């Protein structure tokens, strides 16, 4: 039964492990390299997905499981992706005028403060 499965499909877990480590290093590298925000975002998320796939496929043995895995994981995945998408039009953006003070006045005020600090550091530095 299940135990037999494992024996027939031997996985070299160490390889997977190194792949995962490499991916993590890659994410950190992406953070350090200077790139447009959006590119970093896409890259690190892609890496995260790749890592997740590795973990699920090999560590969690999904690669060797029966078809039930699709029955279980397909709906979950759809819901998990669908929920943020459905929330986006109302929360991620707003159809109406969002009066969050952080967006207007406060942002300006703090930006001013920021600028003054940066200037201050410059003058101090010189």
């Amino acid at each position, binding site marked *: 039964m299940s135990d037999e499965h494992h024996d027939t499909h031997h996985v070299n877990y160490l390889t997977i492990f190194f792949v995962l480590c490499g991916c993590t290093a890659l994410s950190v590298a992406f953070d350090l390299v200077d790139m447009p925000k959006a590119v970093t975002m896409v890259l690190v998320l892609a890496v995260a997905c790749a890592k997740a796939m590795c973990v699920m496929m090999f560590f969690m043995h999904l690669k060797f499981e029966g078809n039930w895995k699709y029955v279980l994981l397909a709906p979950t995945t759809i819901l998990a992706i669908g929920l943020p998408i459905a929330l986006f039009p109302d929360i991620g953006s707003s*159809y*109406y005028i969002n*009066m969050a003070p952080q967006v207007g006045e406060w942002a300006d005020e703090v930006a001013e403060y920021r600028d003054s600090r940066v200037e201050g550091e410059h003058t101090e530095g010189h």
Partner: protein
Amino acid sequence: MNLSTLLIWFLRLLSTGLALYELVVGPLVNSVLADVSLPLLSDQVAGTKWFALIFAVTTWASSEKRFWALFFWYWPLVALWACVIAPGNNWWFPSEPLSRAGHQIDGLFYMILIIVAVTFIGTEFALGYALWKSAVRGKDDKVWFSHGSHRLEIVWTIVPAFILVFISMAQLDVVADIRVLNRFPDEVQSGPVAEVMARQFEWRIRYPKPGTELMTTPQPGDLYYVNELHIAATVPTMVNLRTQDVQHSFFVPRMRVKQDAVPGLIIPIWFDAEKAGEYELLCTELCGWGHYKMKARIIAETPQQVSEYLTGLQADQEEDGVADEE
């Protein structure tokens, strides 16, 4: 004796008693004895006596099984009858729709009502009929041994599917008219006439200083009033709906307007009062203990009256200002 038999007998006697009372005894007593006036259900709600009669006759005429079958026919009848007499008894819309959107909404309501009423009658009476058929079946009749019929099932999936798609299609335009910002009528493109700021438990109205435009933040010279909004009748008006604290909802039943006020958002809404006069404004989103008493009114009048009102308001407010500085 069996309890169900007892129940049937009880219902027979009850309905007969009621019918006799409503049809014979009551009216008789009331007409003969001048100083007695027995309360009659039929006086309160039209048609009661006929139902009592139908019940009485049919309960006597039926065995227990038939009675149950009839039972499932009675009640949709009563329900339908209640709906039919409702408008006459003022259990219907508070008034004709008194706005552009109101007419559209009511139109859609009646459209759905017709579809739904037909479905209701069809399904409920089919159900009752199935019961009736079984109640009158002979002892040796065979049961219909069937696991279903694909053809039938396809029919009764496709037909409602068309109806439902039709119903939703019919809504889209109206939704767009009411809610989609760039489909707002031309008359309101010039901007909102006032800001309605809901708070526990009142509506604060802010008009721009006459001659200026409404800003999202209060400006000096803005005019304030509580629980009364003056708008020009017959033309579409736009207001900015906001809340200072929790969520509220702006509901004007006679205009069929409703929109929640959401903390942190400015939501523009438009409506038009077809007739001059007073319109109730209520809150329909639970906002605390005083939710039920967020009572206000919208006064629709001629544009001159509105501007007179605003001038008056301005005068009042300035007077107060002077008084303050003293």
